[in-house]
């Protein structure tokens, strides 16, 4: 018997070469496992949707744990250490957001909202903020930054893809993990269980809310999503909005004559409470690729080898996805 574990809807088996086999079961659950059922063929459909969506993300250059599909209800993935914080990206209000803030569902956000939740059934997956998550060492600040921009990029891509098949992406959650080299990868599954999809114009619910709200015909609608995804031959051309701001500052031990001159001017103009003025530089890098751990690594290389001179300067990278 190979080592592994069972989740609420999937079994994970550890296999050779730092890989895992993820088997999608027919189980469906809601409200932290309080509501639990078996739905025929659900495992296969969700596995196929997830596989297709991971493949699509790969086409756009995003980095995920997905390697290949082995059987209809199985995929082979890189083994990762799951980060206990998941991201949720919302385009319109729905679900827990409406309950938490007492607002109507279906209100469109001007720009997508990112939320973080602690993965803990006993605590009912509470909302957490980045500062808490980083301080509790559930993730480091670099991972927090990457998770946000990657989630925004995934939202951009999935929204455009679902748009092609007349579906409105309301929200979705993403999980992340680190592989053995510490690379941050999108993990778990991306399926109708992990997102909300409404038919455009009619607003018909096509996702797990059908199960939560007892709307019936869950599998019928899941299968319809898969069928719609399978009609897509050419993926849309999506212009990435990845941007990095590299702030370069002289180390505090290094004399900054220009900063000192500016400081004297400020003092002369009665701003006596300013004690120190240091002038730095900013480099804005706009990329033609989607954000990833590898891209961040590249930016770090550029920053330490070209943009700054480590002898006298420090740098900070701020990765952004402007959508």
């Amino acid at each position: 018997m190979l080592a592994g574990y069972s989740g609420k809807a999937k079994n994970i088996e550890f296999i050779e070469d730092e890989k895992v086999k993820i088997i999608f079961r027919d189980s469906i659950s809601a409200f932290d496992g309080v509501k639990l059922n078996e739905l025929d063929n659900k495992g296969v459909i969700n596995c196929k949707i997830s596989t297709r969506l991971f493949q699509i993300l790969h086409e756009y250059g995003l980095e995920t744990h997905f390697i290949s599909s082995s059987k209809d209800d199985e995929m082979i993935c890189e083994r990762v250490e799951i980060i206990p914080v998941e991201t949720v990206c919302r385009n319109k209000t729905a679900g827990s957001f409406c309950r938490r803030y007492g607002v109507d569902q279906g209100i469109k956000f001007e720009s997508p909202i990112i939320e973080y939740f602690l993965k803990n059934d006993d605590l009912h997956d509470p909302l957490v903020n980045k500062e808490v998550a980083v301080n509790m060492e559930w993730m480091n600040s670099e991972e927090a930054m990457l998770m946000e921009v990657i989630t925004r990029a995934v939202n951009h891509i999935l929204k455009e893809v679902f748009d092609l098949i007349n579906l409105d992406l309301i929200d979705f959650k993403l999980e992340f993990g680190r592989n053995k080299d510490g690379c941050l990868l999108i993990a778990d599954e991306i399926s109708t269980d992990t997102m909300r999809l409404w038919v455009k114009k009619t607003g018909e619910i096509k996702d797990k809310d059908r199960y939560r709200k007892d709307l019936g015909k869950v599998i019928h609608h899941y299968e319809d999503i898969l069928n719609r995804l399978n009609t897509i031959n050419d993926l849309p051309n999506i212009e990435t909005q990845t941007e990095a701001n590299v702030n370069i500052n002289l180390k505090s031990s290094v004399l900054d004559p220009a900063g000192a001159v500016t400081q004297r001017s400020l003092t002369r103009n009665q701003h006596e409470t300013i004690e120190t003025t240091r002038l730095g530089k900013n480099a804005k890098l706009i990329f033609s690729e989607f954000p990833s751990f590898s891209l961040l690594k590249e930016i770090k290389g550029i920053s330490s080898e070209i943009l700054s001179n480590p002898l006298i300067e420090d740098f900070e990278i701020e990765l952004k996805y402007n959508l």
Partner: protein
Amino acid sequence: MKQLKIGITKFPGTNNEPDVARVLKSLEVDYEYIFPDDVEIFQEMDAIVLAGGFSYGDYLRPGAIAAHSTIINELKDFVEKERFIIGICNGFQILCETNILPGILTTNTSTRFISKWVYIMTEETTSPLLAGMKDKVLKIPIAHFDGRYYDLPEKIQELKQSKLIAFRYCDSEGTTTQESNLNGSLENIAGIVNKKGNVLGLMPHPERASFNYLSSEDGKMIFTNLIGELKC
């Protein structure tokens, strides 16, 4: 015997290459301008002079963009083969940005561009480029905004101990005073050499102190030393 040929680099913004060329010509040595992509010609050169100026507009940091141009691999190859390289002013900045020489040249403490005749003291080194020059005080011009030599204290100590400091700013008597250190360089450093002695970097302009009509010939000896070494 094969005719000697010295390469003078010319990046966009380099503007001292005619001055270097004029000195080499007066010493009856052939030269060729080397542009940032001239990989093949580079290897045919007997020595390289990185001429001063403002390569790539001093964008990012002086010398930083040039330090990542195509011919830098050839330059590094030159260093390894222990062939001679002299970096003057912006050339010195490029040598530091490529880590061929240690340290960095940062903004003058005065935040002013300084264009002035100064004096530098030749320190004791083992570099053949400075042969016979020990303790000589040279009258030589500087013209730079970023000439303040900086490195970590332990690295400066290492330079001193290994006798790698080539020149220090001084007064006309040869005393290294604070007043003579116009750009605020640590230890009055005006130029350094590498351990093998084949690479020299300096902020002052020896090519502008190589003719009597310029009021000083003190810089010429660096070039005659170089040519002498290449010929033997």
